[in-house]
C-alpha cells in the first residue's frame, strides 16, 4: 500500500539537490571580482597555486558565507516546521515564540550595555564577536526557560503561543528603550546585527556552527515520529503513548539550539521558518515529518542561497541585507497562504 506521495518525493529531492548544487556554485561565482569557475573549484579543493587574492576572496569570504547560507536555510526551516507542528498553528515560528527576540535582547544588552560601563564596541573585534554569540544564545535560552516554565503550568498550547507573542513584544519594547538611551555607534552595530549578515561568519566559527546545526537537524529527524503524532492533537498523541511533557521539551530544545546558534552568528533572518515548511507541505502533499524534515532542509537551502545571490547581484553597488531579501520573498508568500486558505487552522 505505498502511496503516490512516495513516488513523487525522489524526483522532488533530486530536483532540489541539483538546484542546491547549482545555486551553491552561483553563490560562489557571483561577486564584485570575477574568478573563473575552474579556479574556484581548484581553490576549494586546496590548490595553493591559484592567485593569492582569489584564494583569500574564496576561502575567507565567499565559501564561509555560502556554507552559512546553507546552514541557515536548513536550520531555520526545520525550527519553523517543528514550531508549526507543536503549536498546531501555521504561522508559528521561532520569531513568534520570542526565541529570536530573546537572542536580540541578549545582543542589545551586550552591544549597548557595554558602552555604559565605558567599553567601546565600535570595532568588531574577536572579543566583541564572541560576546555577541554568547549573549545571543543566552538570550534565546532565557526565553526558552521562561516558556518551559510556563508550559509546565499551562496545559493549553494556544495560550503558550499567545504568551510567546507577548514575551516577544515585551522584549522588543525593552530593546526599544535600550536603543533610545544608547549612542549612535552602538546603535549602528546593533542595527547592523538585526539586519542579518551571512558574511559575518568566519570559517573558524563555521567549525562550531556546523556541528551544532547538524546535531539539531539529526535530532529533529529522530523525533519525527513524535512530531507526526502531534498532528492528531495532544489528546490523541498522549493516547498513543507520547510523553507530552518530554516531547514538548525536546522539540523546543532542538528549536532553540537551531535558532539560537544561527541567530547568534548571522543575526535574525526572518520568514524562512514560516514559509519553507508550507512550501514543503504544498509540494509533497504530505504532513509526514519523515518527508517534511528532509524536504524543508533542501528547500531552505535553495531559498536562502537564492536570497544570498539576489542580495549581491553584480548590478548592485553594495550587498543588500539578507533579512530584507527573505522578508521581500517571504511576506507576499505568507499573504498568499492566508488568502488562499481562509480556514488557516486547517493547514497543518
Amino acid at each position: 500500500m505505498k502511496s503516490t506521495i512516495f513516488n513523487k518525493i525522489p524526483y522532488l529531492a533530486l530536483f532540489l539537490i541539483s538546484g542546491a548544487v547549482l545555486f551553491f556554485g552561483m553563490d560562489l561565482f557571483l561577486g564584485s571580482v570575477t574568478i573563473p569557475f575552474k579556479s574556484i573549484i581548484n581553490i576549494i579543493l586546496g590548490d595553493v597555486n591559484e592567485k593569492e587574492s582569489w584564494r583569500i576572496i574564496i576561502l575567507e569570504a565567499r565559501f564561509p558565507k555560502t556554507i552559512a547560507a546553507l546552514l541557515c536555510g536548513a536550520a531555520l526551516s526545520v525550527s519553523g516546521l517543528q514550531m508549526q507542528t507543536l503549536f498546531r498553528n501555521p504561522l508559528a515560528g521561532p520569531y513568534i515564540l520570542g526565541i529570536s527576540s530573546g537572542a536580540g535582547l541578549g545582543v542589545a544588552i551586550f552591544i549597548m550595555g557595554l558602552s555604559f560601563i565605558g567599553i567601546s564596541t565600535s570595532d568588531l573585534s574577536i572579543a566583541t564577536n564572541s560576546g555577541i554569540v554568547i549573549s545571543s544564545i543566552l538570550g534565546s535560552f532565557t526565553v526558552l526557560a521562561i516558556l518551559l516554565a510556563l508550559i509546565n503550568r499551562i496545559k493549553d498550547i494556544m495560550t503558550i503561543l499567545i504568551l510567546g507573542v507577548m514575551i516577544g513584544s515585551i522584549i522588543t519594547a525593552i530593546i526599544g528603550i535600550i536603543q533610545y538611551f544608547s549612542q549612535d555607534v552602538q546603535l549602528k552595530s546593533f542595527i547592523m546585527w538585526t539586519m542579518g549578515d551571512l558574511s559575518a561568519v568566519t570559517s573558524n566559527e563555521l567549525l562550531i556552527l556546523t556541528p551544532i546545526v547538524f546535531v539539531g537537524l539529526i535530532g529533529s529527524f529522530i523525533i519525527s515520529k513524535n512530531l507526526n503524532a502531534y498532528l492528531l492533537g495532544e489528546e490523541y498523541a498522549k493516547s498513543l503513548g507520547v510523553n507530552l511533557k518530554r516531547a514538548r521539551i525536546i522539540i523546543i530544545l532542538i528549536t532553540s539550539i537551531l535558532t539560537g546558534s544561527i541567530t547568534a552568528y548571522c543575526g535574525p533572518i526572518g520568514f524562512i521558518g514560516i514559509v519553507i515548511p508550507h512550501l514543503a507541505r504544498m509540494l509533497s502533499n504530505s504532513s509526514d515529518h519523515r518527508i517534511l524534515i528532509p524536504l524543508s532542509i533542501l528547500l531552505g537551502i535553495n531559498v536562502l542561497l537564492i536570497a544570498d545571490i539576489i542580495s549581491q547581484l553584480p548590478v548592485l553597488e553594495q550587498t543588500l541585507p539578507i533579512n530584507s531579501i527573505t522578508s521581500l520573498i517571504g511576506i507576499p508568500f505568507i499573504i498568499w497562504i492566508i488568502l488562499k486558505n481562509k480556514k488557516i487552522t486547517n493547514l497543518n
Partner: protein
Amino acid sequence: MSNTLKIAALTIGYNKKSILTNIDIISQKNQLISVFGRNGKGKSTLLKTLSGMLPAITGHFIFNGVDVFNLSEKEKSKLISIVSTTKTDIAGIKVSDFVAFGRYPYTNWLGINKKEDDAEINNAIYLCNIENLCNKDYSELSDGEKQKVNIARAIAQNTPLIILDEPTVHLDLINNIEVLKLLKKLVENHAKTIIFSTHQIEYALQICDEIWLINNDIIATYSPVELINKEKLKELFDDDTISFDKVTGTFKIR
C-alpha cells in the same frame, strides 16, 4: 480479579473542583458499557479521567489487574485507546496512513510498519468497512466518515479497552446504527471492553450490556432491563410531560 473492571473511591473534576465524588463501580470486562446522563453532569469528565487524559483528583481505576492511573503513557497506550469529541483537522494524510497511527505504540523510532502492523491496520479498515476511503485524503472526508476512520485507528491500536466519547454524535441514522453494531461486534467477537457515552438511551438500552447512569451527582450501574423496570430514567426529568414507555423502550411526550 483480572476479569473485573473496578473503579474505587474515584473523585473527578477540573482544577480540584470536583464534579462527581466517590465513584465506586465494580463491573465485568468484555462488555459494552454506555454512560448516560444529562449535559454537564460529568460524562466526558469521567471518560477523560478513565482514559488518563485528565488526572483523577483521588481514587483508582483497576483494569486487567493494574491501576491504570499508575501507568506511564506508553504502557497505557497498549491498554486503552480513545475516540474523543475533539476534531482533528489535518490535511496531507491518506486515510490508510491515518489508521496506521494506531500502530504508533508498537512501531520503531521511525514508525516503520512491520507485517503484523499492516495486518492490524487492514483488519481495522475491514471491520469499519472503510476500504473505499483508504486512498482519500483525511481532510476530504465527511464528519461521519472521519468518525469511522477514527474508530478504525483506535481498533488498529489493538487495546483491550476502548473508550469513546459520544461516538455517534455527528452521524446520520445509518452510520449511527452501523457504528453501534460495530461496537457490539468488537465486544462479542474480539473480546474488547468498550465504554462510550451517548445521549441515545433508546439505542443503548437495546445493545448495551450495562448502563452507567449519572443522576443527581451520583453514578450507578444497571443492566438495561433493571434500568427500565426500576423506572430510573423517569427520575432524570422533574417534568410530568415526558414519560418512558417500558414496552417500547422509548420516551413519550404528552
